[in-house]
């Protein structure tokens, strides 16, 4: 098979996180998206005026790209507000690369911001404007109840234990302790996760992502132009998307996600496999999700995810570095986390992740998840020499 023409055609040239944590009531979601956008463009040595492709998604703004374009003064010739929940931004990276390769834009800005913590600490989600007459009468707590149903079935079919779920939270905290920007950095044990407040069994508050404010931005251009810019380019080697359902009752087998397909597509485009990946950033909305994605992205067999994460194997010093920024569980989770998987993957490939930097990172994988295990997008990023 000839190599995929999109492989390595576009590169990430700038990344930034905005202020994170709790920014207070005077700051709007767009402020944080703009803050991250300005910093990511400065990182790339580019200006807002250079942006001609705009990519955004939001639970606040139904026409996210229009709001962001107006705010920044960007008048894009290519605009994409695809909303796959938290998977959106990894999908945007795929779309941006395709648009750049097709000559529809040259400098793509992907940006996101949310102030959901300052707004009252509840997840601001599209579900609040998308009522479900089939689900609402049963009072599920969206979205944790849906992930709890998946976790319960994984435990039933495959023998996964609450202790193994807790290991995911403990590993994330271990990484967060190495990240000065992380929201929760105090030590955490498996026993503490198990003893924490149950929200929707088997998932406790410590099995759940944080509720924080925050924004992130990623700047993408052609790899040809990227070579002339100030930072080492991080090439998009592979990308894939997949979705099979929107509501949890339509998912089918709750132990197998569409990451199996998005991942296979990304590997095929990159000409790489799980064994080539040095570091992983997997959307950890709840502790069950990295277990599912390690299985579905081929890092272990189906049913071995629980054992795979046990004994600190994905924690600092473990065999496989997963969610090196502390993830949505301990670093930041402003409603939709997906853009932060790209930012951390790029930082690891560049070798600028400080105390949490892994040695010899050539290839990083970022996986976004959206809705209720619904939307999936996988990206494989690599240093220039991997093209």
């Amino acid at each position, binding site marked *: 098979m000839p190599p995929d023409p999109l492989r390595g055609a576009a590169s990430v040239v700038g990344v930034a996180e905005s202020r994170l944590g709790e920014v207070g009531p005077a700051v709007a979601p767009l402020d944080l998206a703009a803050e991250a956008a300005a910093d990511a463009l400065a990182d790339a040595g580019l200006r807002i005026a250079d942006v001609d492709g705009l990519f955004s998604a939001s639970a606040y703004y139904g026409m996210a790209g229009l709001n962001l374009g107006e705010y920044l003064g960007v008048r894009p010739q290519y605009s994409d507000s695809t909303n796959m929940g938290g998977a959106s931004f990894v999908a945007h990276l795929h779309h941006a690369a395709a648009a750049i390769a097709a000559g529809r834009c040259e400098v793509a800005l992907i940006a996101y911001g949310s102030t959901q913590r300052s707004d009252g600490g509840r997840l601001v989600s599209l579900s609040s404007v998308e009522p479900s007459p089939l689900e609402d009468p049963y009072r599920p707590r969206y979205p944790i109840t849906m992930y709890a149903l998946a976790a319960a079935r994984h435990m039933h079919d495959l023998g996964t234990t609450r202790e193994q779920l807790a290991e995911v939270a403990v590993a994330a905290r271990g990484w967060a302790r190495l990240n000065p920007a992380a929201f929760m950095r105090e030590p955490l044990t498996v026993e503490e996760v198990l003893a924490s407040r149950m*929200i929707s069994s088997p998932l406790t508050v410590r099995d759940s992502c944080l509720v924080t404010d925050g924004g992130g931005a990623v700047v993408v251009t052609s790899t040809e132009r990227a070579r002339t810019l100030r930072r080492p380019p991080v090439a998009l080697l592979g990308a894939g998307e997949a979705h099979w359902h929107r509501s949890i009752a339509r998912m089918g087998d709750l132990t197998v996600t569409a990451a199996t397909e998005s991942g296979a597509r990304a590997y095929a485009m990159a000409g790489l496999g799980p064994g080539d990946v040095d570091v992983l950033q997997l959307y950890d909305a709840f502790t069950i999700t990295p277990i599912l994605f390690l299985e579905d992205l081929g890092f272990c067999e189906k049913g071995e995810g629980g054992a795979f994460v046990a004994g600190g194997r994905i924690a600092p010093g473990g065999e496989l570095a997963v969610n090196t920024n502390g993830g949505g569980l301990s670093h930041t989770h402003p409603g939709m986390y997906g853009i932060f998987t790209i930012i951390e993957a790029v930082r690891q490939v560049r070798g600028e992740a400080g105390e949490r930097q892994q040695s010899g990172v050539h290839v990083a994988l970022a996986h976004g998840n959206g809705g209720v295990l619904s939307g999936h997008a996988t990206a494989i990023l690599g240093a220039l020499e991997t093209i």
Partner: protein
Amino acid sequence: MTGPDYQRCEQCGTAIFPRRVLCPVCGERRLADATSAGRGIVYSTTAVHAREGTHNVALVDLDEGFRMMSAVAGLDPGAVRIGMVVQARADDEDRLVFHAA
């Protein structure tokens, strides 16, 4: 005792829930209306801990071949088990919930 209404594809036989204008498997537009007998098996279950108390949320696979979100009543919310055979019944909020069969 009856369960929820659903549709049966006249082309490929797929049980369809919720209501649609075409079959998501084969695209057929001729769908027959049907009513489930309300007997099913718990596919997954969770106990939701809310301020006002703990309640059950479950996914139930109806015998006719479709799945719905519901709740299993008449049991401790945490005592509901995957694989449990259940029967639909309207509760006092006029919701369709399930009881151990």
